[in-house]
């Protein structure tokens, strides 16, 4: 388990975090959005001690449309403790483990790192987006305590006044809440806690206490007036559900709200706990590559990856990826083709498991998820424009992420088969052109060994050249 501030430290060590003083203007959300748009580093906004430190782009912030040595899953993978250069599937499996139900509880209770403060919630000076009135918090965890344990859900919202929050939470949790109930909000939690919360929310598994999930064993917790929260949380707000609940809905949504029905909740803040020099993550909403989008795409990919590989009795799917650039509107899957027609089954199985997308691209299992550029080439050169672009009749339930459907519509589905036909003889299969495929090992090795001596500048290590 990595405390949020330690996660920031790891990002700094890998030269993937820049610090800047929190500006008066423009709002930190604008700065964060521009850094995301440019595939920049994660950001740490420092202060003179009068308010919270802020961090953005901590989990995602990277696209795969250019060759990079960081990938969309790199920052989260580091946060999950997978590796300094985490493999994609390892990140999926780490996430999967956090969401798994445990046979026996194995919870560690640790003293709360955050201290009692005299601050009210406005004193925290959470950032206000441009053209908005109230400071906004994102990437939070709501904890609701019950006799059988605590329930964690994502939460985001706004600070209305000194002690009032107006927040969006999944409907699944509000069934358990009544006016006057104590609930806690944790900000700046370990990656495991935040990512697992998103995973459980988007897969509709919020009805099990977190003590009975993998995340409960992975993240040390501390009891609060609400439920338990991660003990290392940077800020904890102990609140009660207000007497009056508004009939409002925020125009700005975190990405999980596109998949999960939510409720607006007014919370009265009773106590504010904060660590010394507390720093909390935030994400600008709606812009490309935002952290909330990344967390949802990885949670969805994790679930689908697990389900398709649990279905056939073998694990033919090498990886499954919902690119953040596609905002859950398209799914890529790399697989071994078990038999002729398998790719049709696989695509339609995925359509049946998710209502987000209506396009699936199937590529050969040997393709690396790190070399997504190659995948984006193969769609058009390996898939025959008529035979391998396959459309259903428009009688399927319409996908919810694309923009073209109206409520109640049915729609068509498309899968692109960019795999080799398993019926082809090997002689039909065109060898790839690549460093590894186009040169004998003795030449490759000699060139790589002499690379720097030949006067080239880039470090060859760590790249996937396949």
């Amino acid at each position, binding site marked *: 388990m990595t405390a949020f501030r330690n996660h920031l430290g790891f990002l700094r060590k890998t030269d993937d975090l*820049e610090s*800047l003083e929190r*500006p008066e*203007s423009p*709002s930190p*959300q604008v700065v964060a959005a*521009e*850094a995301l*748009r*440019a*595939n*920049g*580093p994660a*950001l740490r906004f420092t202060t003179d001690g009068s308010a919270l430190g802020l961090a953005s782009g901590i989990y995602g912030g990277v696209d795969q*449309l*250019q*060759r990079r040595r960081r990938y969309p899953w790199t920052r989260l993978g580091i946060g999950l403790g997978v590796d300094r250069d985490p493999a994609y599937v390892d990140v999926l499996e780490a996430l999967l483990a956090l969401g798994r139900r445990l046979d026996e509880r194995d919870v560690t209770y640790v003293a709360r790192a955050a201290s009692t403060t005299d601050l009210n919630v406005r004193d925290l000076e959470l950032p206000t987006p*441009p053209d908005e009135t109230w400071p906004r918090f994102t990437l939070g965890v709501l904890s609701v305590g019950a006799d059988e344990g605590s329930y964690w859900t994502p939460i985001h919202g706004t600070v209305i006044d000194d002690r009032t929050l107006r927040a969006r939470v999944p409907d699944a949790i509000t069934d358990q809440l009544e006016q006057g109930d104590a609930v806690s909000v944790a900000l700046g939690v370990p990656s495991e806690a935040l990512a697992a919360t998103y995973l459980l929310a988007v897969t509709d598994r919020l009805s099990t206490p977190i003590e009975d999930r993998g995340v409960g064993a992975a993240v040390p917790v501390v009891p609060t007036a609400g439920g338990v929260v991660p003990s290392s949380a940077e800020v904890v707000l102990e609140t009660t559900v207000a007497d009056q609940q508004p009939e409002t809905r925020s125009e700005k949504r975190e990405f999980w709200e596109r998949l999960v029905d939510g409720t607006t909740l007014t919370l009265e803040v009773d106590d504010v706990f904060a660590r010394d020099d507390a720093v909390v993550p935030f994400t600008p909403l709606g*812009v*490309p590559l935002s952290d909330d989008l990344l967390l949802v795409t990885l949670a969805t990919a994790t679930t689908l990856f697990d389900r398709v590989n649990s279905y056939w009795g073998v694990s033919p799917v090498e990886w499954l990826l919902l690119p953040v650039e*596609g*905002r859950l509107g*398209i799914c890529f899957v790399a697989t071994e083709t078990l038999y002729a027609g398998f790719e049709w089954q696989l695509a339609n199985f995925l359509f049946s498991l998710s209502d987000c997308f*209506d396009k699936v691209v199937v590529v050969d299992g040997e393709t690396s998820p790190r*070399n997504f*550029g*190659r995948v*984006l*080439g*193969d769609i*058009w*050169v390996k898939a*025959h*424009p*008529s035979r391998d672009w396959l*459309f*259903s009749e*428009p009688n399927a339930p319409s996908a919810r*992420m694309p*923009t*073209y459907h109206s409520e109640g519509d049915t*729609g*068509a*589905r*498309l899968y692109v088969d960019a795999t080799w036909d398993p019926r082809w003889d090997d002689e039909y299969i*065109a*060898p*790839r*052109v*690549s*460093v590894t*495929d*186009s040169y*004998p090992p003795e030449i490759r090795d000699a060139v790589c060994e002499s*690379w720097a*001596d*030949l006067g*080239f*500048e880039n470090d060859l290590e760590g*790249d996937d050249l396949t």
Partner: protein
Amino acid sequence: MAARTFREFLDVLEEGDETNSITDEISWDLEASAITMLANEFDDRIPVFERIESAIDGARLVGDPYRGPRHRPWDRFARALGLEAGLSGPAYYEAVIDRLRSSHEPTVVEASAAPCKEVVRTGDAASLLEFPWPYIHQGDGGRYANLATLVAPDPDGDWENWSHHRAMIHAASQASVLFLAGEQVPNLYYYEYERRDEPMPVALAIGAGPAVEAASRMWIPVGRSEAAFAGGLQDAPVELVECETNDLHVPASAEVVVEGRVLPNERLDEGPFGDYFGYMNGPRRSMPVLEVDAITHRRAPYLPFCVEGSGVGYSRNSSSTFQTAASGPDATLGLRAAGFDVEMAVPWDFTSRTVWVIAIERSYPGTLHELANFIFTTWGMLHIDFFVFVDADVNPLDPRAALEAIALHADPDRDFHQFGVERMPKVPLNIYQTPDEKGSATVGTSKSKTAKAYVDALADGSRPVQTIGDRAARERARDLLVEAGVDETIFEHDTGGDR
């Protein structure tokens, strides 16, 4: 001022510290191309191989000299043309379009003033085997001259066509040239010269400079002079010189000129070759024979070559760069000239010839169908299979925006449109067809057909936001990030989605 010769272009690169002069002796046999492919993959400096094993007259190789930087593929080409530094992609497109609209007719110089005549060898003295043509990929059918401009005449007129064709070296005086029926010069050869049983005089100009190379890659209409468009690109006339053994004119500054004839009804094997799809295409097929009559060249000539197949995925090479930096503006101009309200036409970033992204207004119902039909029946029909149409305010140079458009705005029911299922012509180089479908290996011209499709990914007004804050706030944000130590070039790489 534009770099008018290949050597001036190398100077431009060198001034930007973008070449890597390698003085170790390097073999033409896979080693030079392996180094070049790695440089392409890592966006490293362009390798100039000063000492090549067994090369005569100090001949040198240059690996993918026209490769653009990964994030701004037009950048080096813009400097080669003497355009303003730091142009955005859309601004570069408009600048090139302006140049193409202002063509300059070429001038003809005497042989004594032509650098390509510094050494003249004719007859038996002219041997292809004395040059260090690279063996590019393991499994290739042979060594290739593949970064060259082929000059060929129209048998019934004065037109001299420039186009790009690769040549596989077979012997001192023979090479096979890839002539795919449907392209301009092969059509002339197969349907004019060969039917008359006449050899086609040709010249292969290697290292002829950026504007010449670019013009030979463009879709210039039949009968129009590529030389004049090249003059427009470099904003000065191209200097030509007459060949030694035929009436053709070649760029006077070329590093090497191979003069010869494409013989009628004679074939030699060509390929397999690791081609622009990123795969080895095969089988070996029979292609017309280039019989060499003369070779003229500069002293210590540079032989640029392209590691084809490496310009896919994240990597760039000369061919993929020419597609983006030359063919893109040319196609944009061509479509506008045809009356279509096109903002930009840009090859897909990850495979340079098979799919294009076109930003366009839907001016009237049926616009996209009509445009796709126009393109597929005029230019691009042999190589391009797909068009993706995006909103006019989307920058098609930004692959993130294009992928978002496909994912969110292209309805599988209503927005994917196929043309003439498996009735459209197709080069036999692609890999999704079986060898039978590609045509017989013994037949010079391809019989293969395929389907073509276009994808309507216009959002019609419902695109997700790409930014927050007004322009001033965003600019201030970028300034703050740079002050904080964020590499300024990150923002140059960000093409931003919206134009």
